[in-house]
């Protein structure tokens, strides 16, 4: 039995002529302890896909199964990290994390909750910012809080929706490395959505492309058999890494080209007119 399974899932929005079919014929199964990355174009329905697994949305057709049973709705066993952090601005770092801890472990005493929260804040290297509020933190730090909050609920599955998409390249690399280290400790099941092939190759066991929408569906999967722990610099020398990187890039540009680049041919004529020469001595006094 798969840990997470999607069978013939379809999802769209709107009514009548305004209806857009976003996802169609989605089949995916994820085993326990697996790190799966779904790579897709913006607007193709990546967030819809992860929201279905999270239970935030319901499929129009097909089944979304968690440990063999239909997903009833959102639950703490499936923790999500969103791209936009979603922190409560009036709570400190500790407060934001404690809130989640309180929901999931109501039996814990206040002191135990505090200790629990701090442990996870420490895990993402934020112990020095325990009493800071979100507005005092950089984007990278906020995303760390969000990761700590999700981890503190000790979910069985981590659902990551482009978690580092809003960060600059340097911060993104740091957070990817941190996530990798944390994941290595207990190898929890992860479903990550990303648009970055390198990020997917660094972190995941399996990469599945999502075709451009509407009616996006999953493409052929790529198994990532690279030794762990992975090092982004050393991976460069690995022929398996370059092979996968080239093949996945090829697949993604190919499916996109069919839908978008076809428009680039023009049947129009270029009018034979010349721009004025502004810098010619006569044109300006």
């Amino acid at each position, binding site marked *: 039995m798969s840990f997470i399974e999607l069978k013939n899932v379809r999802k769209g929005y709107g009514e009548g002529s305004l209806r857009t079919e976003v996802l169609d014929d989605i089949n995916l199964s994820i085993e326990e302890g697996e790190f799966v990355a779904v790579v897709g174009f913006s607007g193709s329905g990546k967030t819809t896909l992860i929201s279905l697994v999270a239970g935030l949305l319901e499929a129009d057709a097909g089944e979304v199964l968690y440990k063999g049973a239909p997903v009833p709705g959102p639950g703490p066993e499936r923790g999500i990290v969103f791209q936009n952090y979603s922190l409560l601005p009036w709570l400190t770092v500790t407060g934001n994390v404690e809130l989640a801890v309180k929901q999931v472990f109501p039996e814990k005493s206040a002191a135990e909750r505090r200790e629990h929260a701090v442990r996870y804040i420490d895990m993402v290297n934020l112990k020095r910012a325990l009493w800071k509020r979100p507005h005092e933190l950089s984007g*990278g730090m906020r995303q760390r809080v969000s990761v700590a909050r999700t981890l503190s609920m000790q979910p069985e599955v981590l659902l990551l929706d482009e978690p580092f998409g809003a960060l600059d390249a340097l*911060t993104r690399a740091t957070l990817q490395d941190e996530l990798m280290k944390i994941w290595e400790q207990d190898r929890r099941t992860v479903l990550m959505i990303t648009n970055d092939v390198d990020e997917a190759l660094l972190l995941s066991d399996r990469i599945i492309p999502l075709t451009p929408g509407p009616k996006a569906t999953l493409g052929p999967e790529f198994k990532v058999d690279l030794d762990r722990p992975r090092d982004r*610099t050393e991976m460069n020398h690995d022929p398996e890494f370059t092979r996968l990187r080239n093949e996945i890039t090829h697949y993604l540009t190919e499916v996109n080209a069919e839908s978008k680049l076809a428009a680039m041919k023009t*049947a129009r*004529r270029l009018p034979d*007119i*010349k*721009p*004025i020469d502004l810098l010619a001595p006569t044109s300006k006094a």
Partner: protein
Amino acid sequence: MATILEEPALDATKPRVGRTHVEITGLNKTYPTPNGGKAVIVDGFEVEIGEGEFIAIIGHSGCGKTTVLQMVAGLNPKTFGTISVAGREVSGPGPDRGVVFQAPCLLPWFTTLGNVMLGVDRVYPDASKKDRKELAEYFLDLVGLGDAIHKWPKELSQGMQQRVGIARALALQPKMLLLDEPFGMLDSLTRMELQDILLGLLQRLKITTMMVTHDVDEALYLSDRIVMMTNGPAAKVGQILPIPFERPRDRDSVLGHESYYDLRESLLDFLEEQDEKKGKAAKEPQPGETATFEAINATQTKIEKYQKSQERDRRMQTIDEAGGMLGGMIDADDVRADRQP
């Protein structure tokens, strides 16, 4: 280090393509500091670019890449040195150099076509209205927006907006294209899509191009040569890497080229080396890792604060930049006036 290229006779300082079209010598940018001193940002930057050649400038952020590009665009006056484009010294912005910035800077109250026409109308004053419109439509077709010419900027995705920006620059038929991290705000897949579009356009139009980027894969895919800049202050050309991939290019053959990953690594190594130098210079006496961590976070917070303060002026800036981009042909007041019915 072992030579990567099969052509040892290649002189990296000379154009790989065409006759010299752009020549930059002894370029220097110095700002006065508040305490009466001088901040030398760029010093002794030199490069020759061939007609139809594509060069990328990479370097650590803050090294002065954008400053160099702005000086070539004429948007930022140089302190010393010479910049000549097609045999003429640059003395200010002009429509002979099309610029595309990271933000597409479209005017929200104009359609896609209107945004392109804004420049076309001014640069082709003697052409008929019909010809001007056809010209704008031709370039919008080329960037794949033929079906979106009557859409408003807010109806377009970020990638599409940036395509309008490219069409707007190209429609002026510039002698040189200046690209300042044009795809930096896009996600990595949209970025690839726009790189393909740009490559196809330049294949056809063969415009001399200078692009500032920090994306190593982007630089390799598009360039004939990559100019690596040293860290500021007083940044200059550290090394020039000739790129051996044949044209016309496609991504598969470039990624599959035997020297692709070697070249990629030498670029990454260079950047890392510059990073380390910068790191050393920045925090000499700080002991311990935690101090570094705090410093990084403090810097990040500062950067974000700065970005937020910038956000406030974004609207005005859009207008000013759009004015600058159209070759200084219109100034911001003009555009604002255009808005009045």
